[in-house]
């Protein structure tokens, strides 16, 4: 219990201290900034309170785009991994292509998606889908194929067919990797959704809010959006972690020390 208390108290006190230094102008003195360049936490909080409904609406738009895109992208990635496992000869090529997709910058993807989709939501989902495919495909493929040698031998000695091997051995074995991929994807999907909004035609969402407000000297409003984006990212990550803890209790990384 004391250990648990310590492990939450320390990060918390460091966080509070950081906010305090920020509020009292420590960072401003250190980095030679004026409060109108980097607003103080209370200024950001009060601006956020005044514009909460708009900020939350924008947050909802970005988060829903990120989640839908991540679900589609991760599903496609997983399917590719399955195909690569079941048909290793030509399926592996698909993995290579997907990894190549990962190298396309969002700056380049957004205009393409703008042409394909007339709505801001479609564009966002399209960008997030492409960005999240690769991490899932590669991780899931590893989980599906990286089996303990004896386990495969054991299945063979039971005369298990490929179908049984897949559902009884490969699928459970890949769960930890899938969750690793989901954790990577939930953060990258938020980033991708926000950055895609910089280039979107739509004028809603956190990304547009951050870019537009920072450009026209509404720094406190811009930072309110940044705060909301950070909070949303953390909450989404925590949700995935919680699901992971329930789904793969048996895995070494989840055992209580």
């Amino acid at each position: 219990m004391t250990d648990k208390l310590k492990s939450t108290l320390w990060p918390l006190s460091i966080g509070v201290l950081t906010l305090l230094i920020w509020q009292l102008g420590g960072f401003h003195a250190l980095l030679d900034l004026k409060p109108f360049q980097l607003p103080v936490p209370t200024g950001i909080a009060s601006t956020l309170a005044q514009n909460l409904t708009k900020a939350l609406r924008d947050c909802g738009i970005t988060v829903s785009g990120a989640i839908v895109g991540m679900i589609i992208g991760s599903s496609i990635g997983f399917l590719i991994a399955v195909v690569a496992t079941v048909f290793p000869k030509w399926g592996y090529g698909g993995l290579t292509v997907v990894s190549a997709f990962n190298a396309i910058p969002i700056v380049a993807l957004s205009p393409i998606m703008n042409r394909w989709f007339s709505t801001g939501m479609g564009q966002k989902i399209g960008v997030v889908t492409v960005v999240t495919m690769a991490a899932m495909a590669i991780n899931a493929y590893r989980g599906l194929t990286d089996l303990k040698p004896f386990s495969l031998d054991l299945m063979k000695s039971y005369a298990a067919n490929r179908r049984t091997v897949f559902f009884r051995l490969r699928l459970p074995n890949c769960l930890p990797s899938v969750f690793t991929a989901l954790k990577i994807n939930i953060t990258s999907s938020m980033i991708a959704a926000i950055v895609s909004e910089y280039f979107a035609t739509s004028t809603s969402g956190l990304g547009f809010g951050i870019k537009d407000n920072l450009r026209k000297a509404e720094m406190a409003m811009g930072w309110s959006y940044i705060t909301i984006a950070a909070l949303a990212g953390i909450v989404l990550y925590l949700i995935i972690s919680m699901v992971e803890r329930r789904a793969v209790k048996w895995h070494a990384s989840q055992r209580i020390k």
Partner: protein
Amino acid sequence: MKKYLSLLLCMALFLSLALAGCGSNGDTAASGSSTAGSSASTSGSSESTASTAAPDKITLQLKWLPQSQFMGYYVAQEKGYYKEQGIDIEILPGGSDIIPEQQVYNGVADIGVTWVSSLMKYQGQGWDLVETAQIFQKSALLLVSKTKAGIKTPADLKGKKVGSWFGGNEYELYAMIESAGLNRDKDLKLVQQDYTMDQLINDEIEAASAMTYNEYGLLLESGIPEAELSKLDMNEHNVAMLEDCLFVNSEWLAKNEDVFVRFLKASIKGWEEACKDPEAAGNIVFNVDKSVSLEHQVYMAKEVAKLVVPEGFDAAKIGYIDNKAIQQTADYALKYGLLTKAADISKCVNSKYWEQAAAK
């Protein structure tokens, strides 16, 4: 043994690098002195500058890419007007993520070009920036649509998809929308416009922001006949706010008054010449940056000349700050909710340096 050998190799490498560094330093020092010498000799031949000291370095931050919108500065650079004034100018191109107000305030650039409405917004937030010359005397912003969309007056914008670049470029548009009694959040859909005119050409939006000197020309060049386009001009609908002006950080200005006046002198001379012969100015800009065609640069130069020296405006007064127009910009900015409190234009603007520079 092996250890010593690698150590020795490392030392040898380090030594050779250090030597190379010294060598190149020596080279630049030598070339630096030779250019200083040549500039001294040129300034000696022209009588305008008495000082034979090294030229003052000035950095100018443009609002956008190198194009004829800024031809005055490029002409002055090309013709050596800055050099005559003992100024070594560096012109920094702008871009979608480069904000002149922040660049100048942070000291990345000494002088900046921006729109007055956008500058007022920064000044209102406490940024210690001051406008010192007004290059464009008129607004160049248009709201362009295809005639088939039937947008003849601002009120026709109701229910339409309208494009803007945002980030400080939307204020005149807001004023136009609200002056027509429309609510910009409810009565129409504002859309973020990219830097091409494709959205309008492909009918994804019904009305698009366009500068007379740039995007409108792009539309014509794309093959749409002028008869099929209708435009709402900010000047005609009494919502015009001033655009391209020169501004500086007040603190910097206090220490560099003399250099700044010399910069203004050279810039005004450059603009005068550019507006007299826009075709040549367009050529000069094209040679600096070939990102768009020569035809487009020349088109832009001609349109920009009409903004810098509008009909009936004395070309000797280029850069003149018309306090009435500034006040109008400030009033509209307040009226249409861009500023939360009235701007004190006596603090936003300082004509003193322009008056010194323009006095012959």
